[in-house]
């Protein structure tokens, strides 16, 4: 009898919790697209978080806005364009490739190339100046001696 009581009580707690969990979304298709888009968008309040993971209030509002845009059958690109037109390229984790963002996109490769050229030139010069050391007769004899021991 005690066991059943405890079991029933446990069940009640389980039910109570189930009742409180908020529904994930009204429309799973919209939500899936929302997640897909918002992972690529930076939250402007907590700048190191994406729009999909941020708990800032503005992020909530922006997610609502994106949801509405999805429901009006806007493409991903159109939605991103809207956000960029309001908040700038900064909201995109992968900004568009254009003259203004060339340094951002190609800068590291240019730096790598420059470093490679520098190294190549340096090593060539070094090879020209540093002669390999040739052992003298006495040194050779000493090496032989050491190896024998």
């Amino acid at each position, binding site marked *: 009898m005690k066991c059943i009581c405890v079991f029933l009580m446990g069940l009640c707690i389980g039910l109570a919790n189930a009742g409180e969990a908020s529904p994930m979304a009204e429309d799973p298709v919209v939500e899936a697209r929302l997640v897909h888009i918002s992972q690529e968008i930076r939250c402007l*309040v907590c700048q190191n978080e994406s729009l999909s993971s941020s708990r800032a209030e503005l992020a909530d*509002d922006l997610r609502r806005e994106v949801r509405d845009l999805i429901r009006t059958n806007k493409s991903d690109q159109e939605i991103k364009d809207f956000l960029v*037109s309001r908040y*700038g390229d900064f909201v995109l984790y992968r900004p568009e490739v254009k003259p203004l963002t060339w340094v951002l996109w190609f800068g590291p490769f240019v730096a790598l190339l420059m470093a490679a050229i520098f190294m190549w030139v340096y090593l060539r010069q070094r090879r020209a100046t540093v002669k390999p050391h040739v052992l003298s007769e006495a040194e050779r004899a000493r090496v032989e001696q050491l190896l024998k021991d």
Partner: protein
Amino acid sequence: MKKVFIPLVFFFGLVIFLAIGLNRDPREIPSPLIGKPAPAFNLVTLESDKTFSPEQMLGKVWMFNVWATWCVACREEHPVLVAFAEKNQIPIVGLSYKEIQPQDPAAKQSDAIKLQVARERSAVWLQRHGNPYTTSVMDLDGRVGIQYGVYGVPETYVIDQQGVIRFKHVGAVTPQLLAEKILPLMQGLGKS
């Protein structure tokens, strides 16, 4: 001997680059709205159910200031705006941004009640701190804020006679900013 200095030059180049980069305020994001027409909207005002839209300001240079009673930095900039409004004949329109926050007890009420609560609260606040605004529009759900790219209250915009956004500032307006940037800009626009 000369070669020794090459890494040094590189190093200082890097230092200068980082010094500039790290000393910039990451919150200051250039707004793409500068030079673009101010987004249209139509909202009821704090004072009445008559709506306000930016079109009504065509032909005037005006300031658009995003504020809320819960916003701490607004309290800091408010006396600056009040003094500015007293001294200059430049209209300042307020955007009462999301006065009812999600954690607010009033947030669960109907839209009509939320509007009423927001109006009462804002009116009391303006009475206490002074009212620099010709009118304030009620953006309860923050949608107009999104249209203007608001991400940190307070924010201030300068809009010209053609309804084009000429300037945006995020954060509290300081007397220095007004004197050195905003006022010269507005006077320049006023003449043209």
